[in-house]
Structures are given as structure tokens and as C-alpha cells.
């Protein structure tokens, strides 16, 4: 394990950017129409519970990744399989987000550019940052975060100055009742983005004050929920629930409405750029988790140079991202309809819960 340290601030920033990740492209819970923000809220509650499971596991096994303690709890073979499953899971998600953002770029600003070229240049950044290691990534996040947050707030401010959002669009609340909200929350908003925090089980050991992981993480979840809700409400109030649901990139459509006296307008590419920063952070976190997991499972890899391993992984990443779906529609459909119930739920909820229960049982056995 590389000796690296992430400070508390860096950790919080990393989680917030991670949570924003691809949600700022596809939006969250717009199926629930004007109550989308309520699904975020209920998703957040579930997310906090999941996060508590993850930190509790980490508390039981400090200095270890989920790929390490899975074999301690499940036995050598089953644990090995679970560890590999997580590595593939993180890697797959990394490729997913890479595809998300490459598609975003191709749809919006670089229409004639081949997807492969965009992916290549993304992967260049990802491989480079993976080579440099978690510490550098955390610091880079620290540098970018204020700018991302600041520009995000400025954009929202512009939206309000222009007077686009209309409270009417948010009415009537709870049109279809609470049940509908919970249906929309589970599994979608719960697993994406909140449950995806399972990736941080790979990063907890690098915190310079590991014992604060729980407190910091929950703080970060709360902050990001706040921002997600603000963004979500602004989109809903600006576009109206029907358009928000139809739009491919709702936030972009909202901000493209900004026009202040004909001076402040036409900022779409800048918005996309800001989104990309957040997206890169998310891809890198997943990629790094897979990378760390791989080194954990195959200790022999440590003899190889870091950049070689990450380059090979990077090439694989592009291939997976290219092959995973034929079109953007298919990609989004799979991402929102198939991945949450069949992949996210077992990896984010079921396995960690089983691990937690096992650790309790084992702890009790030891006491006896």
C-alpha cells in the first residue's frame, strides 16, 4: 500500500465532487416530476445508512480495503471472488462514467469528433493521475473544488437574476403521494449516487485521520445533498417537470436560458467544462479504487512500474467503455434501469450488509 495521506478537507471535497459526478449530467429523479427533490432527500437518508455500514466495516478492519477483509470474513475462495467482483464493479463504473462524459462532450460541444478520440484524451488524464497517486488526486480536487463550487453558485445566481425559475413549476407537491417517491427512490436515487460511496471503502485507509471518516463522510453527504437539491429545484422550476424529464442534460438546458441584459449569456461550453472537472474526479476515484484493489489482490503487481499498470488498465477502460453499449439511449437506459437493481443493489447493499453481519458474528465468537 502506498503511503499517502488525504486531509479531512480533501476527503470532504472528494466526496462532494464524487456525488455530483454524473448526476449533474443526467439529473436525478426527474421521473418523479416536481417531487424530484424529495426523492433526493429520501435517497440521502438511505445513503447515510449505507455509509454507516461502510464506515463500520472500516472501523472493524482499519487499514484494510473491502477487497482485503472480504476474504477474511468470507473465507479464502468466496472472499477472493467478492474481491474480484468489487474490482470489476469499480472498473465497470469507471468506464460507465467515462462513457457518460464522453457522450456529453460529443453530444454538446464536439459533434463531429469520434467518441474514441474524446475517450482517449479523458483516459490520458485518468492514467496520468492514477500514476501520480491518491495524494495528488486529492490535492488536485482541493484546487478545483472552490472554482467548481464558485462557478456553480455563480451560474445559479445568473439563473435567478434572469428570473427563469418559477415557483409555479414546483406545484402541486406530492401529486402522486409518498409511495411514489419511495418507489422512485429505491433503487435509483439511493444507489446512484449515494450508494456509489461504497468505492470509498477502498480509500478510507489513506485518510490521515482515519477515525474521522464517518463524521466527515456524513458531513460531505449532507452538503452535497443540499447542493443537489438546490440544483434540482432550480432545474425543475426553470424548465418545468415535463421538459426536465425529456432533456438529455437538464442542467445545461437550464443554464443556457441565462440572459442578463444580453451581456451574460451563451455560457454553455463553460458549464460543460465545469461538469467535466467533476466528472474526471469521479472517473478517477473509481479507476483508482479498481487499481488499488488489483494491487491488493495481486501483490505481485507491486513490482511493476505504476505507469505501466495504469496504462494497461487505461486501454482496457476505453475498450470497456466503448463496448458497453451501442448508443447513448441504450447507455442511459442500462445505467438508470438495469444497473441499479441488478448490479448496484448487490454490490452496495447486500454484500456490505452480509459482511457487516459476519463481522458481528465473528466479533462475538472471539469474545466467547
Amino acid at each position: 500500500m502506498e503511503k499517502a495521506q488525504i486531509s479531512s478537507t480533501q476527503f470532504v471535497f472528494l466526496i462532494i465532487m464524487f456525488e455530483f459526478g454524473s448526476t449533474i449530467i443526467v439529473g436525478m429523479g426527474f421521473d418523479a416530476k416536481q417531487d424530484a427533490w424529495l426523492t433526493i432527500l429520501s435517497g440521502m437518508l438511505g445513503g447515510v445508512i449505507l455509509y454507516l455500514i461502510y464506515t463500520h466495516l472500516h472501523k472493524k478492519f482499519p487499514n484494510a480495503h473491502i477487497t482485503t477483509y472480504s476474504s477474511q470474513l468470507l473465507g479464502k475462495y468466496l472472499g477472493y471472488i467478492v474481491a474480484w467482483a468489487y474490482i470489476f464493479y469499480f472498473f465497470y463504473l469507471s468506464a460507465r462514467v467515462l462513457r457518460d462524459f464522453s457522450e456529453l462532450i460529443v453530444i454538446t460541444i464536439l459533434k463531429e469528433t469520434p467518441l474514441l478520440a474524446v475517450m482517449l484524451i479523458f483516459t490520458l488524464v485518468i492514467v496520468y493521475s492514477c500514476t501520480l497517486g491518491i495524494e495528488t488526486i486529492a490535492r488536485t480536487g482541493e484546487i478545483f473544488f472552490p472554482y467548481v463550487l464558485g462557478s456553480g453558485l455563480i451560474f445559479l445566481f445568473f439563473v435567478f437574476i434572469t428570473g427563469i425559475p418559477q415557483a409555479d413549476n414546483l406545484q402541486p407537491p406530492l401529486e402522486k403521494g409518498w409511495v411514489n417517491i419511495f418507489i422512485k427512490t429505491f433503487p435509483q436515487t439511493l444507489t446512484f449516487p449515494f450508494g456509489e460511496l461504497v468505492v470509498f471503502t477502498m480509500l478510507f485507509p489513506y485518510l490521515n485521520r482515519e477515525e474521522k471518516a464517518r463524521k466527515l463522510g456524513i458531513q460531505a453527504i449532507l452538503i452535497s445533498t443540499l447542493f443537489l437539491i438546490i440544483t434540482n429545484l432550480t432545474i425543475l422550476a426553470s424548465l418545468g417537470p415535463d421538459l426536465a424529464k425529456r432533456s438529455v442534460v437538464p442542467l445545461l438546458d437550464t443554464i443556457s436560458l441565462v440572459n442578463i441584459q444580453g451581456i451574460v449569456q451563451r455560457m454553455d461550453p463553460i458549464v460543460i467544462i465545469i461538469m467535466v472537472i467533476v466528472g474526471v474526479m469521479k472517473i478517477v476515484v473509481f479507476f483508482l479504487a479498481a487499481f488499488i484493489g488489483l494491487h491488493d489482490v495481486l501483490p505481485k503487481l507491486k513490482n511493476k512500474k505504476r505507469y505501466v499498470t495504469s496504462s494497461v488498465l487505461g486501454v482496457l477502460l476505453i475498450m470497456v467503455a466503448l463496448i458497453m453499449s451501442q448508443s447513448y439511449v441504450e447507455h442511459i437506459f442500462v445505467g438508470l434501469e438495469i444497473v441499479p437493481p441488478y448490479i448496484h443493489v448487490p454490490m452496495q447493499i447486500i454484500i456490505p450488509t452480509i459482511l457487516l453481519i459476519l463481522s458481528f458474528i465473528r466479533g462475538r465468537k472471539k469474545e466467547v
Partner: protein
Amino acid sequence: MNRVITKIIVLFLLLATLSGCWSKKELDNLAIVTGIGIDKAEEGYEVSVQIINPAEVAAKQLTTRTAVSSYTASGKSLFDAIRNLIEVTPRKVYLSHTRIVIFSEELAKEGISDTIDFLVRDHELRTDFYLAIAKGYSAKQMLNILTPLDKIPASKMYAMIDNSERYLAQTRTVKIQKFTADLLLEGQQPFLTGIYIQGSTDIGNSIENVERVDSPAKILADHIGAMKGDQLIGWLEHKESKGFNYLTGKVKNSTEIIPCKDDDKYTSFEIISTDKKIKGKVKDGKPTFTIDIKVRANVAQSDCELKISNPKTLDKLEKDLNKEISDTASLTLEAIQKDLQTDIVGFGELLHRTKNKDWQKIKGQWDELFPEADIKVNVQTKIKRTGTITDSFKEK
């Protein structure tokens, strides 16, 4: 071995960058479109675009060439038609700077949702252009009028629609996002701005139009086209349009005139702000609405014998204004409820938002219920200031 791999990867990446520039569009290869006009063709659509001649617009010397050119092509769908433009335009059509999209009245009456789909879906088009219907003309004719002062006619139209909403309230600006939102709502019907030409379209077409002090052909913005679904079903007249703006609380600045006792002299007011509040309920299956309009006005001109310095006079004037404005509003209500029978104010949507349970029961029959709805208008005017003098000069 490792080194070889890295070298190959680096080379690969370098190649990718160098052979790039896929999405590149050089400025001098773009035909910048400022206005799009959509007419009905025998089969499908006929599209006219107004394209800037940059050298003429930016020219410091006077030239005899026009600042814009227009091109027309037709196709089975709007997209098809726009692609077919490439046959006639010398450069690639670039739509991001479109200021206005004009539909012909004929097309609007048949329905425009098919064209709206392209306008929303295409990413090159932004969302900041205005939609308008050419009242009584074809969209092509509208785009072929040259305008003085502003060298680009589409920009001129954009500014004109903007100003007439802001200072006269005789029309309403409609952007695509507003239009599509209205189209999708169950309790709201969309509406569009009307524009038309005054004068000869033949001269308007040539540079002669901008060579005279008084241009023979002018473009004007007035009237609001009421739609039902995506079809134009009729026009609100000048006064009705203003009433519509009162009902929707969008009068930012406008004028009202009130006659003196009996002669043909008037007191004029500048409306400085309005505010509306609609309350709706369903009673025995019959929807009723109360609209409170709050108006603030300044005295702009008075030709009557009025002692304006006396608060009582102001009270009386306020009452007259109340009546005048509520008459205007009633006129509009009459038009949309009885003649056009389309809910462009959004009364149904109001019920949906505030009285959702009742709405769910009646939303199926809203089209029949709306014309029968009982709508009351209360206007409350407050005269704030009287300009730099108080009593009029007639008052001695």
C-alpha cells in the same frame, strides 16, 4: 519492454491529437443564420434563412450590397429542408446565432409541433430565439424585408418584439422553452407573438428600402396568436393582447388613456408595474376564478381641467383607471372564453397547482368547462406620481 509500451501509447496519443480537428469550423466558412422562416410547401416545409454578410455588416464604408442575404429550400421535414439549404448557400449553415424563428400563418393553423421538435432537439440551435407568427404573410416575405438602423433585420425584429412587450405590452415574447412547456401542460394552451409587414413587400426586399428616410416597408409586432395545442386558432386584437398581459401579470410598462368628462380630451397614464393574483376553485363542478390585478401608474399627460394636487381627484382617476383596465381584461376573457375557446392564460394549470384533487376530477372536460367558467376581475390602481408638475395647465 515497458519502455516500448509507453512509447507506443505516447505516439498513439500524439497522433490522435495531431490528426484531430474533427469538429473544427473556421469562421470564414460559416453562414451565420440570424432568422429562420418556415412556410408550408406542397409537400413538407419550405425554409428560408437570413444569412449575414459579415463584410457588409462590419464595413466602414457604404456599400451597395445588402447586409444580409436569404436563401430558401424545401424538404419533407424541417431538418431535411435545412440540410437541402446546403445546395443553395455557399457555406455551411450555422444556426447558433438565430434570433427569431417565424412561422407562416398558414402553417401555424395546421400545427407546428413537428417543427418544434427539431428546434428543441438540434443542439446547434440555442434556446434564446423568439418564436413568432407572420400575420397574413409568409415567413419568407418577413425575412426579406431590409431594415434601416439595424443592418440585420432579424436582430431588428428581436429588439422590436422585446421593446413592444416591455414598453407597450401589446404583445408577448415567446421563447421555445416557454412554448414547449405550455404545449405539454394539460391546463394551459400556448400562444405566440404576431408580426406583420406594413407597406409594400416588393420594395422592402431591395436596398431601396433603407435608402429612404421613410422606409416604404416596415415590420411591426402586435397581436397575440392564440393556439389550441399546436394549432393557431385565432388572434387577439391589439387591446385584447394588452388585456391578456394584464391577466397574466406581465405588463411591465404601458400606457392607458382616460377621456375627460365628455369632450375628446384625455388624461394619459404610464403604467409602471402590475401584479396579478388568481384564485380558483371548483364549485358544484363549475370552476370559478377571481383575478386581482394591482396596478401602479404615473400621470404622464393631462389635457383635462383637473386639480391633480387634490387627493380626491386622484381617487376619481384611480377609479376610472380601474374600470378601463378591467374592461380591457374582460374583453380578453370574452375573446378567449367565447370566441377562441382556448385557455392560454392557464386557468386550468392554476387549478392543477392549487386544487389538485378537484382538478383531477374535471381535467377530462376542461375544454367544455373553460368557456363556462365564472371569472371575476378586480383591478386596484394606485397613482404613485404625477410627473414634475401637479395641476394641469387647463386648471386655473
